[in-house]
């Protein structure tokens, strides 16, 4: 199954994915196309995606911030409105008490019947009142109207009484009374004509307060309730604790204004809390109004927008990756094809060049042989003449001399033929011990006559300690032939050619071929190893010699460098490893 999948995948694999054949290695511009491909894809995608991602993140943050501030504003507004309503409710109660005290005075308030009537009237006009009571300066309950029998009770040590004496007005926490109904006490201090004072107290049911708060509640995620300054819940809360218990939110710090904060680390997710410390114009209250909204519930439109953005960006990223990958694959594939085609052409040309070299060689050899053959011809002809024309043959010194001349000439031909055979054999790709001195002299031998005729001096200097060079003799020979040919073409008659070989470092051999011929202008130097670059006239050079030489040197894991000055001469320096290493050789053979 997996193997099948792999096979299917391989069908989509671009051609360059498998590494370039080592056979073409000397000729290709790049070898690791997979790396180029990966780097290309990475750079293209990174360049395309980076701005997109940055802008998206920026945009995201911007929307998030504006939504946060919008939510805070809305919560603040709700808290502010609710605060006004609660304040109004409490002030209304206090105002009613003050009005009653001023209207009726101590005398009528302490009359139980009157007090009952006042309670009834207040209930009718105001509602939510449970009872009314009048307490003396000393804390004794003087009159009471309400459902309980509380006359005569002593409140002198009670907290609310002490507070009221100090502040003239008092609003208590909400608490459960005897009937187990949450209520709040409000009280006013009033002076009598004789200078003493009494306290007029009312108990309010919280029903109306709760209704007021509920009217500001909006949505399932909102909660609005009152806590006292110790954090105990005063009116029912939907999510943050039971009534009269400590609220599960942190108590907000004091502020005279309505505020809103965002808490991100509460268990139920981020919440927005609007709060206000409630105080009436007449008296402080122990109440803090809390408006709590779960952020999650208020983000509906934003979440919709966010998922749209996420989808859009996600699709964008996918498209970018797809398009960039395809583009990069296509481009690298084209590059690979062009490079491979170039390498194939170069390899073919090297082969052609080898054939051309062979042809030149054969022609050279034929010419070389012609001279000794002419000598044989004439000498043998003369001997025949001696027999036919002169009739003298016995004990003739001249005859012997001539026979020796024939044998000499044949010997010369034999030498040339042997050289030719040796030359041909050395084209086999084979790593072997190379006698560099001999190789150089063999190559130069084919230019010996030309050098003589053109009066060109040839110096050869091979250092003694470079024995043990192991390389492909055929390729090295071709390198030498090409460079020496070039030198001969560059030199005028009477010039000097120097061929030197010396050890460089421990494991390299340096081969220097320098002439004092026409040289090359500096601007052509970088181009001379390019295929089809030639300075020779049309039909004179193919422009391949040095390109092929370069390829051959690379094949032998060597390096070639050139120095040249116009009209002063040219020096080629070839450095080769002394040992053609084993793994290199394997590469070579596996490619073949």
């Amino acid at each position: 199954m997996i193997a099948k999948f792999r096979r299917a995948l391989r069908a989509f694999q671009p051609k360059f994915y498998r590494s370039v054949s080592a056979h073409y290695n000397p000729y290709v511009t790049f070898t690791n196309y997979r790396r180029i491909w990966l780097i290309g894809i990475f750079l293209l995608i990174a360049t395309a995606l980076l701005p997109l991602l940055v802008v998206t993140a920026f945009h995201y943050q911007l929307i998030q911030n504006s939504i946060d501030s919008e939510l805070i504003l809305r919560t603040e507004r709700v808290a502010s409105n609710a605060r006004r309503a609660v304040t109004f409710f409490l002030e209304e109660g206090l105002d009613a008490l003050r009005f009653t005290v001023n209207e009726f005075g101590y005398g009528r308030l302490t009359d139980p019947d009157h007090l009952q009537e006042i309670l009834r009237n207040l209930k009718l006009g105001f509602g939510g009142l449970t009872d009314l009571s009048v307490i003396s300066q000393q804390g004794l309950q003087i009159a009471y109207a309400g459902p309980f029998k509380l006359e005569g009770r002593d409140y002198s040590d009670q907290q609310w009484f002490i507070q009221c004496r100090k502040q003239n007005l008092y609003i208590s926490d909400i608490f459960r009374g005897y009937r187990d109904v949450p209520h709040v006490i409000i009280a006013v201090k009033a002076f009598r004509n004789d200078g003493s004072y009494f306290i007029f107290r009312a108990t309010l049911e919280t029903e109306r307060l709760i209704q007021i708060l509920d009217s500001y509640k909006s949505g399932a995620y909102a909660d609005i309730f009152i806590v006292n300054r110790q954090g105990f819940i005063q009116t029912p809360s939907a999510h943050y604790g039971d009534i009269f218990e400590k609220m599960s939110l942190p108590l907000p710090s004091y502020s005279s204004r309505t505020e809103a904060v965002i808490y991100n680390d509460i268990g139920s997710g981020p919440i927005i809390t609007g709060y206000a410390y409630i105080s009436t114009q007449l008296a402080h209250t122990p109440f803090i109004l809390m408006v709590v909204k779960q952020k999650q519930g208020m983000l509906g439109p934003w979440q919709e927008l966010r998922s749209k953005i996420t989808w859009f960006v996600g699709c964008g990223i996918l498209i970018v990756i797809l398009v960039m990958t395809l583009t990069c694959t296509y481009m690298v594939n084209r590059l690979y094809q062009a490079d491979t085609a170039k390498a194939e052409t170069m390899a073919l040309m090297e082969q052609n060049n080898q054939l051309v070299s062979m042809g030149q060689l054969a022609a050279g050899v034929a010419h070389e042989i012609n001279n000794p053959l002419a000598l044989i011809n004439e000498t043998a002809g003369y001997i025949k003449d001696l027999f036919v024309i002169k009739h003298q043959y016995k004990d003739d010194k001249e005859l012997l001399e001539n026979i020796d001349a024939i044998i000499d000439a044949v010997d010369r031909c034999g030498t040339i033929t042997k050289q030719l055979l040796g030359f041909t054999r050395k084209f086999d790709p084979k790593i072997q011990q190379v006698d560099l001195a001999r190789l150089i002299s063999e190559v130069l031998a084919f230019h010996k006559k030309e050098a003589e005729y053109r009066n060109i001096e040839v110096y050869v200097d091979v250092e003694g300690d470079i024995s043990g060079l192991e390389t492909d003799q055929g390729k090295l020979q071709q390198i030498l032939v090409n460079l020496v040919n070039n030198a001969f073409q560059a030199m005028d008659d009477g010039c000097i050619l120097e061929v030197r070989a010396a050890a460089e470092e421990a494991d390299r051999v340096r081969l220097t071929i320098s002439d004092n011929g026409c040289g090359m202008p500096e601007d052509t130097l970088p181009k001379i190893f390019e295929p089809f670059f030639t300075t020779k006239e049309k039909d004179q050079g193919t422009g391949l010699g040095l390109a092929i030489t370069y390829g051959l040197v690379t094949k032998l894991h060597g390096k070639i460098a050139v120095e040249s000055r116009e009209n002063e001469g040219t020096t080629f320096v070839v450095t080769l490893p002394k040992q053609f290493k084993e793994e290199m050789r394997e590469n070579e053979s596996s490619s073949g």
Partner: protein
Amino acid sequence: MKQYSLLIVDDEERFANMLARRLNLRGCACEVCYRGQKALDVLERQSFFLVLLDLHLPDIYGTEVLSRIRKRRLTTPVIVLTGHGTEDDRKKCLELGAYDFIHKPVGIDKLMAILEKIEREPA
């Protein structure tokens, strides 16, 4: 047999001498030069029926010798006899007025036939 006077110019000394000897046997008077300059000097003093000229001479290249002969307005026919000649050489020599361009080795009978042919042709 007609007596021809020939000048052989070739740096391959043994070959030149052997050819001269064989032509002697066939009734020709041969002068031998191993260098181009020497040949030009000899031609200054003496006239020949024919010059056999090699191309690859150590001092002056054969074609140059040929063109100098022509500059001196000498009408002596010149046969270029070479072991190294290329097609370009052949063209150039014929342009310079060489009578023929022959590759070494050449049969003596062929050479004699050419001599007789030159003899028959009107000067």
